[in-house]
């Protein structure tokens, strides 16, 4: 077994990584405690931007959790041999990201001590309440799926569990997109396209996270990923990036078609300062076009280029979510169409938002928790993808 052959230096490195992740998670928890004691006045949020940087982290992790499971689905449900050995890692990452994302989401509540109320009092018309069910269900199904993969006697049920996970993750990401899609009064949201957009974004973000983790694991073990496998996964990431860019463009073009939304689009795409910069520079160029070049240009496409492209996709995801979540809230609500308005409550003004340190630390704490779960999980159970090279080289 791999674990019995480890050197003392390797064990030390493992514990150093675990301690590092624990420290980051602990700092995140301390930040959340500060936010709960001092109130959300300790954050940059206000009555305009009610969901700040923690939501950017949380939604990234939750959407990626759904997308990362794609790797398992392609293997188990669609029978692709390259992806099959990666299914357990895909499931573990899904659980870890889900846990990290939910940790941030729950600790950013005004009353995190009442989190159980969300489970005991469910309003059936609330998309948030649906998501409580969807997230817990997702964790249960993926845990079951992992069991069917690891327990030999349960192997025959693996495909069925994989199919259930596939269906559930589509519903889950639809639910996440719908959190925003149902906000009828907000110019930035209120679009049925947001559900499919989140699904497509999840494909790219999840695969990018998977590729970063996989490359790190192979580097740690001093092994090389088979070039054929690497090329296939890189190509798939490229397709997901292109599809995401296309759907994002469609959402904005749809908005631009409606006169009532032109002002918001002008703000977010041209006049809004940081937001257009993050959209075009962060998401489109760094998180979209550059990764496509790195993945498809004949001069690149190798292991390092794929890693860089994946890391850039993650960076672009944060940029896009920041623009989507924060930019969508700073733009003033149009309560009096056709009027200029002003008040002591920020009406008619573009709101300002500067994320505070506790917010950032809470977000990073969630990433730390996901990282910790992944690191420990990979060590305790055998999640390292074992490729049958003869079977995949010409696949």
């Amino acid at each position: 077994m791999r674990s019995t052959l480890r050197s003392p230096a390797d064990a030390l490195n493992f514990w150093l990584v675990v301690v590092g992740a624990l420290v980051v998670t602990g700092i995140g928890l301390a930040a959340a405690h500060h936010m709960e004691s001092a109130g959300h006045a300790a954050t940059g949020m206000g009555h305009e931007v009610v969901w700040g940087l923690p939501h950017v982290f949380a939604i990234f992790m939750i959407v990626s959790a759904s997308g990362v499971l794609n790797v398992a689905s392609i293997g188990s449900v669609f029978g692709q041999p390259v992806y099959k050995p990666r299914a357990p890692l895909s499931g573990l990452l899904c659980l870890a990201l889900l846990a990290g994302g939910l940790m941030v989401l729950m600790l950013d509540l005004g009353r995190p001590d009442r989190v159980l109320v969300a489970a005991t009092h469910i309003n059936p018309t609330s998309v948030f309440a649906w998501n409580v069910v969807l997230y817990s269900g997702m964790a249960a199904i993926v845990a079951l799926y992992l069991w069917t993969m690891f327990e030999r006697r349960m192997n025959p049920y693996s495909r069925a569990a994989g199919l259930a996970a596939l269906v559930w993750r589509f519903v889950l990401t639809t639910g996440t997109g719908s959190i925003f899609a149902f906000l009828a009064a907000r110019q930035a949201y209120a679009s049925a396209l947001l559900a499919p957009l989140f699904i497509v974004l999840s494909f790219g973000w999840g695969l990018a996270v998977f590729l970063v983790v996989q490359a790190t694991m192979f580097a740690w073990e001093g092994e090389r990923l088979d070039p054929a496998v690497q090329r296939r996964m890189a190509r798939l990431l490229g397709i997901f990036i292109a599809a995401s860019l296309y759907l994002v463009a469609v959402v904005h073009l749809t908005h631009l078609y409606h006169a009532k939304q032109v002002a918001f689009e002008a703000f977010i795409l041209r006049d809004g300062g940081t937001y257009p910069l993050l959209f075009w520079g962060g998401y489109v160029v760094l998180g979209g076009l550059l990764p496509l070049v790195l993945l498809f240009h004949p001069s690149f496409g190798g292991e390092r280029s794929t890693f860089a492209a994946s890391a850039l996709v993650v960076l672009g995801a944060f940029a896009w979510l920041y623009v989507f979540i924060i930019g969508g809230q700073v733009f003033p609500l149009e309560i009096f169409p056709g009027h200029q308005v002003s008040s002591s409550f920020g009406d008619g003004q573009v709101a300002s938002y500067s994320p505070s340190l506790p917010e950032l630390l809470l977000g990073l704490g969630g990433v730390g928790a996901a990282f910790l779960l992944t690191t420990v999980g990979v060590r305790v159970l055998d999640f390292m993808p074992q490729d049958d090279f003869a079977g995949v080289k010409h696949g």
Partner: protein
Amino acid sequence: MNTPGTPSRPSRRAFLGAAAATGATGAVLLAPGIQLVEVAQAAAPNAASAGGPGATALPGANPRVRWGLLIDTTKCAPGCTDCVSACRTEHGLPEPKRRTDVQWIRKIEIKAIDTGRQGSLPVMCQHCAKPPCVDVCPTGASFKRADGVVLVDRHLCIGCRYCMMACPYKARSFVHEPVTDQKPDAPRGMGCVESCTLCVHRIDAGHMAGGGSTACAEACTKAGHGAILFGDLNDPHSEISRRVKEIRSTVLRADLRVEPGVHYLGL
């Protein structure tokens, strides 16, 4: 055995007895927001009118009534904030000094882009018949009473702020700082969302039947403007009903069809 003069420790029998008695009228509180027994969720809105131990139980919110406001923007004086101050005093809200301070009601100055016509008007919770805040609230903390008043149950609010995202009127405030000097009729709490209650404590105390009004409407009348009128929109004989029938009023963001209970004249 308990000795006289020392605080007695409740026996199990006494606890169970109290629990049973509580269960008959409400719920047993296990932890903040967690109730072991909950009877008739619909009765929750009556809690405001319960008036504490020994009080005679008042009938619940009257479903035949639709409380609302009519705001005549032609009478609303620019610069006057008497309604805002009265609301703050009535509910123990702090004077807004920081950007995070709550504002249940605010004055908005408006100017038509095409004609340049200017005006001034107060905006508060519009007490919609189809409130988006109630639809999105995951725990049911945001609720609409049978008489149309939209409220937040402070025991169920987890502070997710989804209602603030959903409200088309920016009518809700999140309590960002610890609260002090609370009024018994307006319980508040850090980490929860709150908004105009349409002075529900006055409604439940029966003040409205005697011609009473909300704090904001009262202050506006006292200031001599008479721009805010409170009343029952369902009662054909009420002044508010007569006026909305006679003069064309509008509601904010009528396109959203959330059917606000606050109507505006002269917009």
